[in-house]
């Protein structure tokens, strides 16, 4: 399988405080990889480092065999990494349509396909994003990332703060994306759904990768030890 993302010896700092000490992770083309860990263990910092959103970090991050460490975030996005960040980060002063097209890149994912995936966005395409519900904003942010036709889609707590029915809709969409061969790096606290979906798991503890393996190997003992579940 072709290697899409390879991280080795990643260290990151916020000011003087070091957040990541030694993170490694690999994603092959078409894989869904889950990044797990308790709160504050470095999951979002790892993602921010991949996307060039941290000012002080070092180590090896190779995407499609190109080193992306210390590259500006827009260049990393142009290389094909689409991010759905934690919290709802739609451009609230733009319409749904403007949100989707503002950063679009030509490719397999276009407006028709995104609207097919999220029919509610089609119904509201001329509405300002600020008038959407939380669930609709989350759909919009996922749609916006897909419209960049990324080689790797990163989902950071994409189901957080959503009602059970919308959450289950989002999980269905992620399953569809997997079946279409989209490579995904995902952070989420719903371990059960991740175990049904992810090909590989990496667990972070105190800024280090401490375990990796398949769903089958992620036993309740491992989950209890590192995740407290």
């Amino acid at each position, binding site marked *: 399988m072709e290697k899409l993302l390879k991280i080795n010896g990643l260290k990151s700092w916020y000011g003087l*405080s070091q957040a990541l000490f030694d993170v490694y992770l690999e994603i092959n083309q078409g894989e869904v990889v889950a990044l797990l860990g308790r709160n504050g263990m470095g999951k979002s910092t790892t993602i921010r480092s991949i996307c060039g959103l941290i000012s002080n970090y070092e180590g090896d991050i190779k995407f499609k065999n190109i080193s992306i460490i210390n590259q500006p975030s827009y260049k990393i996005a142009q290389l094909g990494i689409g991010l759905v960040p934690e919290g709802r980060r739609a451009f609230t002063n733009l319409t749904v349509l403007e949100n989707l097209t503002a950063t679009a890149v030509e490719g397999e994912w276009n407006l028709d396909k995104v609207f097919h995936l999220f029919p509610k966005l089609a119904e509201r395409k001329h509405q300002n994003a600020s008038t959407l519900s939380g669930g609709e904003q989350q759909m919009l942010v996922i749609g916006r990332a897909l419209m960049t036709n990324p080689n790797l889609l990163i989902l950071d707590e994409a189901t957080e703060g959503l009602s059970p029915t919308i959450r289950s809709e989002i999980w269905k969409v992620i399953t569809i994306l997997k079946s279409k061969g989209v490579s995904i790096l995902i952070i989420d606290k719903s371990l059960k759904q991740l175990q049904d979906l992810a090909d590989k798991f990496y667990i972070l503890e105190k800024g280090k990768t401490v375990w990796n393996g398949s769903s089958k190997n992620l036993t309740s003992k491992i989950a209890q030890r590192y995740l407290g579940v």
Partner: protein
Amino acid sequence: MKNKILNITNLSKSYGAFKVTDEITIDLHFDEIHALIGPNGAGKSTLIKQIVGSVKHDIGSIILDQEDITDLTDVERAKIGISRTFQVSSIIPQFSAIDNIVLSLLDKSSKTFQLFKSVRNNKELYTNAKKILKEIELLEKCDISASDLSHGDRRKLEVGLALAMDPKVFLFDEPMAGLDESGTNMMINLFKKIKSNSPILLIEHDMDAVFALADRVSVINYGKIVATGTVDEIRKNELVRDVYLGYEI
């Protein structure tokens, strides 16, 4: 009325033709956690904003501890005992965790201007702030700048700010969002402990937490309360399953 700390009657708010909250009547008993659930966009957060006074309602009344607070400003309501957390954080990111709590404690005691004096020498203040940080399991991170805390830790700090206000009622808006399992369990135990002192109106999408905590649950859809009952009654309610819970819970 005597067993109710908060009594909301016919509260409504419209934006043009769109009714965000539509004649909502809901109450909170002493020693109770009353959960408010409903689809995204149903009007839950707007209701909270109306209760704290940051969004002006069109009609309706709000009684807190037998006092009509309907016409009070948000600042006045906070002073007499309504404390909320936010879906989106109200933390000051440049301040350390402990300084955020200290600021909230100062605000409660109406001594915010002490900030300009030597607050750091006020041992009692910092001792109280540390007690709160211990409750929310952030004591070890007390000196870390809030902007450097993880998303989950910031949610805990948000609850800490509300605790520091020692209010008559808590309004918690999705306090479990972004918390891991142990954080959620900590919050569940904390809420069980504090509800006898200050009852809680809880908005939350984590149904495991809601079912573990709530004495009563109300369901809001399109701005209207469509059901109120015990956890068991709500779980079995077909309408609630259709509009919110789905059929996997």
